[in-house]
């Protein structure tokens, strides 16, 4: 696709040659059509679904009677209100917690002499890689009001306190601790880029370290704090796994779980689901817009010029306290849930009559793993997941390369629209992409629905903004003159891309494809509406096990999935690093 039409791009300036003159508009047109097909068509179908009450499967599209009434009815529905406010409460509370944790960690890592800072910085990013459903399942095992492992231990210890993670506060805590890294990423880089003399000036002026922190440091990185909290809020809002695992037992619906519930009814309420999905999308879009606004505003914490020597506050013996805080966080986020999953997966029954029963080895076995692998769907889902991941990475990577190059490296008209269309999905939660693709393809006979491709296309569309952004960064690092030099040497555009741009951008391209692959294999939200029994993927099958109510099997498959993700992640990181290392030119 990149090949033939791109050949003529620079010739767009060469007005003497008629066929070449047409190449640029044709190329832009082709890209726009592809993007429209991936993004605009499904969204239109989603709006269509929300505005009608005809079932696409039963009625076909012939009997379309558009009416705003249906949409307004849905918005006026009490259950929708409840789900909406539950979502705001869970994500709002989670964001507050995430800001506290994220800010504390970024300060500890960037601005103090806490020991093993590198380790803390690396380890505190682990929650980003934990699939939300796995986290939810693990905390269900730990904190369910009756059988939760934490509560069992409290009972042994004779403490009259019980955790209940099947609740709004449980949801908030799990959201908060798992999505703190989003805040951390923003605040840590803001702190790192901040001119240390801004703080030194305060110190010389006579202010204490504490006063400096609250009158200079935090106000200066306020934009980063706001951007990070908006991002984490948006991410939480689109998450299905955590509220499905922790909210459902207590009958707490948030927007995402409510949408899925609507499609799981019999008969499925696709129209209502589309309407609620649009509500979710609008809220997300507003927040994303606000976040972009904050980020593009004057970020005054950074002063260009000289490289700063990082300034580490000497905490004295308090540094062991901050180190302890970091350890507690890691224990809660990584060690505890992992232990819970391991115990649940290997115990025949998740019941302990006393403390010693925990070490009764006769109670441990591979029985849950056996039953997981006895199910033919298990291997099928793993195989499907890999297939979808590879297709998404290759197709999405190629498309993102074409878009990134066209937007960043050419002056063709229409590239702004391409950029806009490619960035649009940033404001669409995965679950909404799923519902939109459902509406786009379910009514078309012989179409994509029921194949692996619909999943892959949905993922390509969903992750397009991240991929294009990652690739654009590496394009921007290649100086335009490197390309121009090749043109001067008589290379055509295609030849230049192949011999100059592609080799130089290779680390970026590999990294983006890796990112796409990882994102695709752990995606649950959009898969929920698009899989069939033949095309089930790991994330969906895990949800199946969980809803089947067998904790042991769920935990076992969670471990299997986490192990596979870990191996693939390690492998792709390794490949990515190898490529980068072989592409040093000086």
């Amino acid at each position: 696709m990149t090949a033939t039409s791109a050949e003529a791009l620079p010739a767009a300036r060469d007005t003497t040659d008629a066929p070449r003159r047409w190449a640029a508009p044709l190329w832009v047109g082709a890209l726009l059509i592809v993007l429209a097909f991936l993004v605009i068509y499904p969204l239109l179908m989603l709006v269509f679904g929300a505005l009608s009450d005809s079932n696409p499967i039963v009625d076909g599209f012939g009997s379309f009677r558009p009416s705003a009434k249906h949409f307004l009815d849905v918005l006026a529905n009490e259950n929708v209100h409840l789900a909406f406010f539950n979502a705001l409460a869970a994500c709002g509370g989670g964001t507050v917690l995430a800001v506290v944790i994220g800010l504390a960690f970024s300060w500890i890592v960037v601005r103090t002499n806490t020991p093993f800072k590198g380790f803390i910085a690396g380890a505190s990013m682990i929650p980003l890689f934990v699939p939300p459903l796995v986290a939810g399942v693990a905390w269900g095992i730990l904190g369910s009001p009756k059988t939760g492992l934490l509560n069992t231990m409290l009972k042994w210890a004779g403490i009259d306190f019980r955790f209940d993670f099947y609740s709004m506060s449980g949801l908030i805590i799990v959201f908060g601790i798992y999505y703190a890294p989003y805040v951390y990423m923003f605040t840590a880089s803001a702190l790192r880029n901040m001119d240390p003399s801004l703080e030194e000036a305060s110190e010389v002026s006579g202010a204490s370290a504490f006063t400096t922190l609250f009158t200079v440091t935090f106000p200066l990185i306020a934009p980063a704090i706001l951007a990070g909290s908006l991002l984490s809020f948006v991410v939480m809002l689109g998450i299905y796994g955590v509220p499905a695992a922790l909210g459902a037992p207590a009958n707490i619906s948030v927007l995402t779980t409510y949408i899925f519930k609507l499609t799981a009814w019999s008969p499925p309420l696709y129209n209502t689901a589309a309407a609620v999905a649009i509500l979710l999308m609008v809220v997300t879009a507003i927040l994303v817009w606000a976040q972009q606004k904050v980020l593009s505003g004057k970020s005054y914490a950074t002063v260009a010029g000289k490289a700063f020597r990082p300034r580490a506050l000497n905490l004295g013996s308090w540094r062991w306290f901050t180190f302890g805080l970091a350890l507690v966080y890691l224990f809660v986020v990584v060690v505890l849930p992992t232990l819970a999953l391991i115990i649940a997966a290997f115990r025949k029954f998740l019941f302990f009559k006393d403390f010693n029963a925990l070490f009764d080895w006769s109670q441990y076995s591979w029985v849950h793993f056996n039953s997981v692998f006895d199910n033919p769907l298990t291997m099928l889902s793993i195989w499907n997941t890999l297939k979808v991941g590879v297709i998404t990475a290759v197709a999405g990577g190629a498309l993102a390369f074409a878009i990134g190059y066209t937007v960043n490296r050419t002056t063709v008209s229409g590239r702004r629209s391409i950029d806009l269309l490619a960035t649009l999905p940033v404001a669409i939660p995965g679950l909404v992409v799923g519902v939109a693709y459902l509406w786009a393809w379910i009514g078309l006979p012989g179409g994509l629905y029921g194949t692996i491709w619909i999943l892959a296309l949905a993922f390509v569309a969903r992750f397009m903004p991240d991929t294009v952004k990652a690739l654009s960064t590496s394009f921007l690092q290649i100086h335009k003159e490197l390309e121009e030099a090749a043109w001067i040497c008589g290379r055509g555009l295609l030849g230049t891309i192949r011999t100059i741009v592609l080799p130089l951008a290779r680390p970026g391209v590999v990294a983006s494809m890796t990112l796409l692959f990882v994102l695709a294999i752990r995606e649950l939200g959009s898969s929920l509406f698009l899989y069939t029994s033949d095309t089930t993927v790991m994330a969906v099958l895990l949800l199946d096990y969980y809803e089947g109510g067998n904790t042991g099997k769920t935990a076992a498959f969670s471990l299997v999935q986490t192990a596979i993700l870990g191996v693939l992640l390690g492998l792709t990181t390794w490949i990515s690093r190898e490529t980068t290392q072989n592409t040093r030119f000086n």
Partner: protein
Amino acid sequence: MTSALLIEDLVKQFATGKPAVDGVSFDVPAGEIVVLLGPSGCGKTTTLRCVAGLEHPTGGRISIGDRVVSEPQRGLLVSPRERDIGMVFQSYAVWPHMTVRQNVAYPLKHRRKNGGGDINTKVNETLELVGLGDYAERPVTSLSGGQMQRVALARSLVYRPQLLLLDEPLSNLDAKLRIRLRDELRRILKQTGMTGLYVTHDQSEAVVLGDRIGVMKDGKLLQMAPPAEIYNRPADSFVANFTGASNILLGKVLARNGDKATIDLGAAGRIEAWTPQPLAVGDKARVALRAENVRLGEKGPANAFSGRVVERRYQGMQTVYDVELGGQRLEALELGTAARHNDGEIPLTLPPDQCWAYRDEGATSVE
């Protein structure tokens, strides 16, 4: 008069490499401005930051007023906020989330002892002093670079600290503004009677602002003297070269008499020169002199030579000549808009007082 700042044998050793500051000692009497001058990486900024307490010295002693603020051997270290100092940073470091007034009032609000008085009055007075009286309520982000630097200066002056530290405060400004602000800075500092330690790599700043200039290189203080002495009696061939004596003639010491030496330049003949160093007969020597001090077309009573103009470069306000002198090269500078000399043989005089001989220790030059 007691010293406002006394530095004795200061050493700062970072985790790796050579010491950044290696045994520096000097003092700044109250009301005087001392400028530390040197190329980047010479240790001048590290010295300043040690005085501020932002960097922790590994050896020596620093006293501000009569109080020792840093003496690592005794484990003594006073925090920056308790040193009663003001500091102006290279990047201004004005807080972008505050207005001009909030920036300047900040130290008055957060310092422990403030000598009483109304905060607003003090802020207004100081803003008037730096010429920002009408800008008090503006957000600092709306100011130009030069105005931001005035805010930074006002912020460090407002509480009348015992000692003012300035870390290349003008280097982020454009050339014209730098000259204007430099002269104004001197006026303000003298008007307030501040004691100052000023760090720069710019000679013209150093000469205008400094009551004394200390030239630093590789963590060592090479010479500390009033500007005229630095320019006319450089103690070291690096100081000579750094302050603009770019001509070097190589030779051998023939005779020595007090601080005068006679040096054999080979084919060019003999030259009389002043020397601050213990040169002995037979030593290899390098004679440094400024291009401005070469007198073309003159036959003086001493150090008269005959050279040949190889190239002439007319630069408008001045003309530079490349002169060959007995196989060695010399640059001569003639001020004025007329270039009076042509290519070819020419008599020239190198005034003995302006020729300085140093021991030849191989190449020493400033990039």
